[in-house]
């Protein structure tokens, strides 16, 4: 019969796997919630204009937000933001599916280094994704049409990656949003899973090599 402690230990044993499954589930958020949010503020836009970036689409607070942003951008000769012409929005979802598959695999195998590997893979992918995001922002901000009606020498039109920046009459605010934060938590969870797993593995070794000491602990705790 299982004592309370052995029950706790068996739960402790399950933790890494549970955490890993939660991490995988958190990634589903990428298909439901935006990962990043860019808000433009100006006096004529009392509620701001907010663009939401998802893993597979770009949206706004209304269906017409993107059109309204494009209309503003065309004065300075910025390319239209057309989600159909951004290939990443098409293949990123498949990368996420694969990563989720790998995460489940890691949970099945339930080995510390697999959790670690998954976490590192995620970090690399996130870094690449953010770098890609930066490249797009750089492209939109610098690759301006020669025939732009409004040309401002030395002005930077590139939106901020993270933080607040003044772009002519607009204050641009850019921060991760719900599913971006969820993906971040997923990474943290995978590393926690790795740490716990390592500790459990070490503990199991210790227990099997010194079961007397273990019963001693048990008795003391009962006393």
């Amino acid at each position: 019969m299982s004592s309370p402690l052995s029950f706790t230990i068996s739960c402790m044993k399950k933790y890494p796997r549970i955490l890993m499954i939660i991490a995988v589930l958190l990634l589903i958020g990428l298909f439901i919630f935006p990962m990043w949010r860019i808000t433009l503020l100006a006096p004529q836009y009392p509620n701001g204009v907010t663009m939401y970036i998802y893993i597979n689409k770009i949206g706004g607070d209304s269906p017409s937000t993107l059109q309204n942003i494009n209309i503003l951008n065309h004065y300075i000769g910025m390319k239209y933001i057309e989600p159909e012409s951004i290939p990443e929005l098409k293949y990123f979802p498949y990368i996420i599916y694969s990563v989720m598959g790998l995460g489940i695999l890691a949970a099945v195998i339930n080995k510390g280094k697999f959790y670690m590997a998954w976490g590192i893979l995620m970090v690399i992918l996130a870094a690449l994704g953010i770098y890609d995001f930066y490249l797009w922002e750089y492209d939109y901000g610098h690759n301006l049409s020669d025939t732009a009606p409004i040309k401002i020498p030395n002005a930077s039109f590139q939106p901020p990656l993270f933080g607040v920046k003044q772009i002519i009459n607009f204050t641009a605010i850019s921060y991760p949003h719900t599913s971006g934060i969820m993906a971040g938590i997923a990474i943290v969870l995978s590393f926690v899973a790795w740490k716990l797993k390592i500790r459990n593995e070490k503990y199991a070794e210790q227990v099997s090599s010194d079961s007397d000491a273990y019963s001693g602990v048990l008795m003391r705790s009962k006393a």
Partner: protein
Amino acid sequence: MKNLSSNFKNVLLVIAGLLLAASCNTPGNAYKSGALAGDVASQVYVPPGEYDEFYAFMSGGFSGQISVHGLPSGRLLRIIPVFSVDAEKGYGFNEETKAMLNTSHGFIPWDDAHHPELSQTNGVTDGRWIFINGNNTPRVARVDLSTFETAEIIEIPNSGGNHSSPFTTENTEYVVAGTRFGVPYPQQDVAIDSYAENFKGMLTYISVSEEGDMDVAFQILLPAFDYDLAHSGKGKSHGWTFFTTYNTEEKATLLEVTASQNDKDYIAAVNWKKAEEYLAQGKFREVAANYADNEYDESTQMATSTMKNSVKILTPEDCPGLVYFLPTPKSPHGVDVDPTGEYIVGNGKLSADLTVHSFTKMLAAIENESFEKVVAGVPVLQFEEVVAGVVPEAGLGPLHTEFDANGNAYTSFFITSEVVKWKVGSWEVLDRAPSYYSIGHLMIPGGDSKEPQGKYLVALNKITKDRYLPTGPELCHSAQLYDISGDKMKLLLDFPTMGEPHYAQGISADRIQSKSKKFYPLEENKHPYATLGEKDARVERAGNNVHVYMTTIRSHFAPDNIEGIKVGDKVYFHVTNLEQDWDVPHGFAMMGANNAELLIMPGQTETLLWEPKTVGVFPFYCTDFCSALHQEMQGYVRVSPRNSDIAMTWKLGEDDPVQ
């Protein structure tokens, strides 16, 4: 010559003398301001960027429109075109809205708009629609308060001068339309002298569906009195409508004398629930008629005019218990029902007293058949049996009464130029405040509903004189705002109004604000000539008719160069505004167009007809400052001779032609 010039000098001297005297007599500020006390400025001050507490909808009278003001600031927020064409908005000029002004007399570009009336649910203003009557060519309009656009106009048959209109019933089951001018029934070529014999007065009930659709439900044939104003019962008197009458003498000439002879005229009490029963029993006559029902469809963005050809008529002889007359002194103007529904105030405009009838007493008098006589099949109830009380010598020339939430009534007195506050039930006068000058109607937000929202009273004055900087012989009409939250009325503000407001309605902003539309979604645009993307912009010829499918977006038209138009063509510019953001209209103006401009809201399509008469190249442009490059928003149409073989071409941009 000499005589003439010295006469002229004398005249000048006299005028100079008069001017001097006038300047000596200029009343002091205390008089002009009604002795304003305390810090009234802060009570009407709405800081920049903040909102007024109430919407006020004022009729435009001879402007034919409704103006929307904010209260307490008095700021003008918008003018809603209703019965009159409005070149600024293209209303009545563009192809979509011309049909709104169709009548059995053809297209009528103007009317005299008198009484705005908010829709109600359970006797409380609900902010769905506002109705207004056209007095001249009898009509009733419905304005949608999510768009502030006129949604429907229905013509009233067998009527002349639709004045006692469009007062609503408690749940907007009906709005009414009583004729102010008797007309021959049926309309025919008869001697005007035969008025009493051949002329009739018709009361019309217009049903309003859940979606707002108006229909002439039935009419009640009555003697040719002048039916002046109306109000429907509420609460216990729900199911009844009360119409004031004058000219019960039934005269057709020099009415100022001939129609002012009877000591008492009538308030006609109509039991419309009873009318519904009679209709169900088939006790009506279906009579041929010819009247227009014009509806604006928000999805096709187009008005269609339907001619209707019959109407159901009820007569008191066939329908006992349908109408009763309540004798009421001296040509009553307004008839106002207090929030409880018990008291019916007759504002006898040639009297010093206000007569108040009791609904309960009226029902008892009907029950006991306390009839004085029967006129044209309508029992006249005994005055003493229905009167609840009299507000004695409150002033001269009472016109109209509204109510607050605390059992007080406020009556406008035109002749003595004042508002008088009195207690409902005890009939004692509590306070009086002068108006500048000669108040007509007055308005308290919700003041004719079951739940007055109180706080403010607006006086709609008929005479302005020296209240503002002079603007030549013609002056604006003036409104005045009073604080009625305390025991004493306090004058807060003068503000100019549009046209001549005959009545107004007020409603707390929250009942409308949140429902206000920001733009029309393009995907809901079902206009038959809509162009939903720039790539679909094109020009199509069908004989002499040319259809230009044009789009606007900041800051260009597509197409903006058109060639192949010929003299004698009818060119229809169907302009779709592709913007999908709040407050980004574009305008469209074509040189030489004989109508007006278009002012196209985001997501909307509007059509301007242009008939070029000479060859040449003519510019068009955007009239609404839309963007930093608004001034560049322009284009050209080339017009060639009739026999030319220039091909039809169109484009936008040099290296990116649309075609």
